[in-house]
């Protein structure tokens, strides 16, 4: 790798990290705003998530007398793996910010690491709510995982590689021709999985604090101060990464295929726009669907797996 390439990589990685870190809370704010409007409320301002994070960051933390190092260090593992994921997903450009480092399976693995750390931390405080959230979260993720991986496997097999940069470039190269039935089925499956992974209706309610319905919030119930800020920020960032992954794998159009100021700027704007659209779709779901009973989730996520398998099946049986 020559010095020019190295500088390009550092620039793109830095740009992506700064953009995601700066933009992720705003994405959450737009979702809350739309949800509030759908419920005939005004809703908090668009800067509220930033204010929340700053407030928690400065607060005196409370630690459970039952908990130990796991609860203390888990937030760093959660955010650390999501930050690593940010750098492995193509967004403004068709190439990944760190090209050749990891593929879509590495992203899936990083999400699993974050889930593992958070679910463990929730058990460290000895709280029933932590256990409840943790056990539901890992169970729902287990239901979602086959759909997630099979949907991504579909685009990987079509592109002949699981490298996300190559997948994006392949998609852009095919234009509208990319949107074959198999591709659309896999896209639908992935969309269902995104709902589960980000904890929106009908799987989870991101705003609930009613004990018996919490999943993600249940795991955060004993977190406070900087730990809480870290975990909430990590979940906001994860939403942004999943939105970017969705667009990179299924609708990569608009991302820059060459490294030049104008295409990158255009890719940046399109990338932000796609994220906002994904966010608004989730807000629409939050506002229009009730949260489903937990026992009906296998149907929903089974549907995701089935859609992904149908897409994959069409692809491998009728290449």
């Amino acid at each position, binding site marked *: 790798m020559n010095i020019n390439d190295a500088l390009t990589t550092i620039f793109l990685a830095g740009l992506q990290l700064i953009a995601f870190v700066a933009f992720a809370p705003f994405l959450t704010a737009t979702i809350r705003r739309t949800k509030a409007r759908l419920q005939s409320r005004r809703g908090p301002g668009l800067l509220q998530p930033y204010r929340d994070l700053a407030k928690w960051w400065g607060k*005196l*933390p*409370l*630690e*459970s*007398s*039952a*908990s*130990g190092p*796991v609860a*203390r260090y888990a937030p*760093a593992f959660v*955010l*650390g*793996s999501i930050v690593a994921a940010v750098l492995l997903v193509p967004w403004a450009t068709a190439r990944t910010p760190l*090209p*050749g*480092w*990891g593929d879509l*399976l*590495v992203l899936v*693995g990083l999400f*699993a*690491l974050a889930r*593992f750390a958070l*679910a*463990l931390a929730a*058990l*460290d*405080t*000895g*709280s*029933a709510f932590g*256990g*409840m959230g*943790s*056990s*539901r979260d*890992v*169970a729902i993720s*287990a239901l979602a995982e*086959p*759909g*997630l*991986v099979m949907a991504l*496997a579909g685009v*990987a*097999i079509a592109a002949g590689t*699981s*490298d996300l940069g190559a997948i994006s470039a392949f998609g852009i190269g095919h234009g509208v021709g990319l949107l074959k039935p198999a591709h659309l089925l896999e896209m639908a499956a992935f969309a269902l999985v995104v709902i589960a992974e980000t904890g929106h209706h009908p799987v989870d309610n991101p705003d609930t604090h009613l004990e018996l319905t919490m999943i993600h919030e249940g795991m955060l119930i*004993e977190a406070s101060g900087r730990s809480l800020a*870290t975990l909430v920020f990590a979940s906001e960032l994860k939403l942004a990464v999943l939105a970017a992954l969705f667009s990179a794998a299924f609708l990569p159009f608009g991302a820059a295929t060459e490294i030049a100021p104008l295409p990158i700027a255009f890719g940046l704007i399109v990338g932000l726009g796609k994220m906002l659209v994904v966010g608004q779709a989730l807000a629409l779901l939050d506002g229009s669907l009730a949260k489903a009973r937990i*026992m009906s*989730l*296998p149907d929903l996520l089974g549907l995701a797996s089935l859609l992904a*398998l149908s897409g*994959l*099946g069409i692809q*491998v*049986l009728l290449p």
Partner: protein
Amino acid sequence: MTVLPSEVDPLVIVTPDTASGAGFLPGLWVAAVALFLLAAVAAFGPNRNRISALLSTAGSLCALALGVYLLAGGAALSGSGGDVLGFSPIAFRYDGLSGVFLVAFGASAAAASFSIVDEPARSRPEASAFPLFLASILLVLGASTAFSFLIAWESMALLSAFLVVGLRPTRAVVSAGNLYLAMTHVATAAILIGFGLLAAGSGGSLDFAAWHVAAPSLDPLTRNLVLVLVFVGFATKAGAMPFHSWLPRAHPVAPSHVSAVMSGAMIKCGIYGMVRLMIDVVGGTPDWLALLILGIGAVSAVMGVLYAVMQHDIKRLLAYHSIENIGIILIGLGSSLLLASHGSTALAAVALTAALFHSINHAVFKTLLFLCAGAVIRATGLHDLNHLGGLGRKMPVTMVAFGIGAAAISGLPPLNGFASEWLTFQGLFGAAGAGGGFPFARFAAALAIGALALTTALAVACFVKATGVAFLGLPRSKKAAEAHETSVPALAAISLLAAACLGLGLAAGFVTTSLAATVRTVLSADPTAASAAGSAAVTSGPRDGGAATYAALAVGLLLLVAIAVISIATMARVQARRVDTWACGIEPKPAFQYTATAYAKPIRLFFRRVLVPEREVRVEYQPGTAFLASIHYRSEITLLLEDRVLKPAHRLSLRGADFVRKLQGGAIQLYVAYIVVAVIALMLWAR
């Protein structure tokens, strides 16, 4: 291969294949065997455990060194010795493939042996059998004739059965041991018949090398029969479904260091046998058998982990995870066979690398987890997760080591389990894509992708449960509250294994490169085809060009740096205030916590179609009042194979035996009548 005339010497003579620079190899092998034998003797001497355990640790380290050398491309080691009754020479040959499994065996056995240095053995014969068991595995991995293989194989089976049962077993232990003995002998019988067919097909030779030469000229029916028999035999030893019933029963009753080696190394001998016999010696596995292996792998993986989530006995939980991991290895093996037979050599190499790498990885983290489980059981006397909790405070090193092992077996980056599962996925992507040949095979590979994804996610659930319920929160019993950290040698063993999980994960690129030569030899592929550019690869650093890459070292360092920076940022603060956990305004109690059974409930209900859970709640009141006297809660799942297939079949066979017994009345006249009828029938038939 050096074949010595059998009259030369009745002793085993070991000579390296090529003499150049490998003079110490026979020495290593002899040292390993000698140390194991000495350890077996030392178990009867004074200070029995310490010396015996140290000697077998040294022997295992010799085996590990031998494995590393062979894996790094060293010359093969072979030797043969005295004829047995003028029948067949005892011959051994260790090559790169043996090296892979020697590494797995050496790491597992060294750690397990060292962990018992300060622990009293159950009895002297058991302490003595353990090093002999280790020696038998060492011999299995190098045997190059049917005779030596079967002797080593059978010693391994009998010694492990003795170690499981022990000298003073309870009724339950005897029943587990009997099941294990029966199944392992069914396995040996299948292998024996397979060997017999091969020997018949190669003019009576018992030499693997002669079989390899004769294999292409076998008629397809015989060859397929051999392959199926050998597969069934080795799959039973490996514990793949549906041949797994012995495994979850034998492990919980065996001492932990024995379970560790059985799970880490012994069941791998089944995988070794498959690769050795099916790919290396015979070859030409038909597509339907490759698909069957893929299917058995997928079913073992999903059902293994699903049953594991349902367990609350920590060792049975780990035993079911062995079934899961054998399943993952078989997925790699099956897709490799499929890809190889359809000309995708590069991808077949990826899938086989995945299977071999996962074998090593599983040896490391499963030994680690079993040794940690042993530490917990010694510290508390409890097997049941539901009575544990809060052990992390008393056993911090064990907690961290178990946590690392849990993350590794769950396939989380940057640990070793992730790297091999990544490769397994890449093999499947290849088989579902262009490499898989005909459409049905490609669809099967697509299904296996979903199965493997489900497996990894359920493994995360299971190990969050095991780690969290055992080590975190508040202690659920007095014994758990009074736990203490385990002995120093055991801590050293688990710490080193935990470091190996991280080390093998970060150095995954290096490991896969070291495996490449062996994989090429096994697939008999020419070097250019197997390392074709553009194929998926685990590397150390980033690799350009759009091919699937997992830059293990780079991603690992990125992750560790990110975690470190965020830790420092979040920790730089005033001392946190300690408060009680929120329990809606009342004092938090250990009973409020989720137990292992409660934690698994969502999964139990989500997968109720296959788990068929049963629940019984019995509430008793004090007589004449509305006050509670007691509540009994029982929750069980149905094991589909055992409860719905094997048990009815067992009953049916007993009924059949009853019927046959009626024929056998005991009266001599009756038997004479039978003979007369038989003779008349024969005469009529032969007329």
